[in-house]
């Protein structure tokens, strides 16, 4: 009897221990990263402007060293925004959230390399991948996404 109870408690403990990280996002402590704005503000003030720099590369093509440098900054900020999305206090949906954020990180990093190479064609070709990374996450996590108001 005692063995049976111990086994049940063991199994319950395993389930509890394994489920904990997924159910309870680790709060950002005072000693680590802490979100500056809401998710909406992160999108509006960082991700939209930096992604626009890639989306509109054909009409806003840099024409000077300074402008190319600025584009590199936009691409790097876009890629690193994925890390900001993965902060425990921002991550909303466990593995799927991280997976979707990595789509943004990957395309942002590719955009950074293309900007460093001053390769307008490569940047233009990344538009589809960037668009997909946005809508994939929005479809998973943005309520009502794609529905008419």
């Amino acid at each position, binding site marked *: 009897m*005692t063995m049976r109870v*111990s086994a049940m408690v063991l199994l319950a*403990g395993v389930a509890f221990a394994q489920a904990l990280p997924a159910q309870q996002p680790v709060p950002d402590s005072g000693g680590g990263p802490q979100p500056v704005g809401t998710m909406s503000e992160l999108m509006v003030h960082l991700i939209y402007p930096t992604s626009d720099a890639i989306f509109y590369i054909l009409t806003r093509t840099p024409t000077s060293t300074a402008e190319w440098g600025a584009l590199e*900054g936009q691409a*790097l900020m876009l890629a*690193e925004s994925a890390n*900001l999305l993965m902060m425990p206090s921002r991550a909303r949906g466990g593995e799927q959230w*991280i997976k979707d954020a990595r789509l943004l990180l990957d395309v942002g990093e590719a955009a950074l390399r293309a900007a460093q190479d001053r390769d307008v064609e490569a940047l233009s070709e990344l538009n589809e991948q960037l668009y997909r990374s946005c809508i994939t996450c929005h479809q998973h996590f943005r309520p009502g996404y794609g529905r008419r108001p």
Partner: protein
Amino acid sequence: MPIRFPLMKLKKYHWLLVPVFLYGCAPDAEQPFTEVANLRDLMITVVEPAAEVYWDAVGWIVDASGTTEIRPSSPEEWEGVRNAAYQVAESGNLMMMGDRAVDEPEWIAFSQAMINVGRRAIEAAEAQDEQGVFDVGAEIYGVCNGCHATYASETLRPSAGGEGD
């Protein structure tokens, strides 16, 4: 005579400790971050340009011909100042991620100071408060210099030259 502890009477309930033990063995929440740039490149490519946008946004030039005011002249320009402030603030978080983080309390303190001053920078820009942007700009400069003095003193030397100084 063996010493008997009253607690030993509870030994038949030892299995109650199993969940506690397993809780301690729960896998650490893995940090999912992947740095796209090292610290130096983050500074040169994102932080410094964003801070420059903020510092250059407002100012007053007083000369023989009078006072010339420098300020954003449209909502779009103010938006650019605010977005730069967001980049500064969130860069404080990026400094604490992955290999960029230095395992010292001072590093965390400077990173958080950057987040905090960045928040004030956002507020001043949203309020389109020229004097506020000017003043918070000086605070940003102070946080930058404090961190550089501790971790990158070579960037403070006028003769250092090159990128990142």
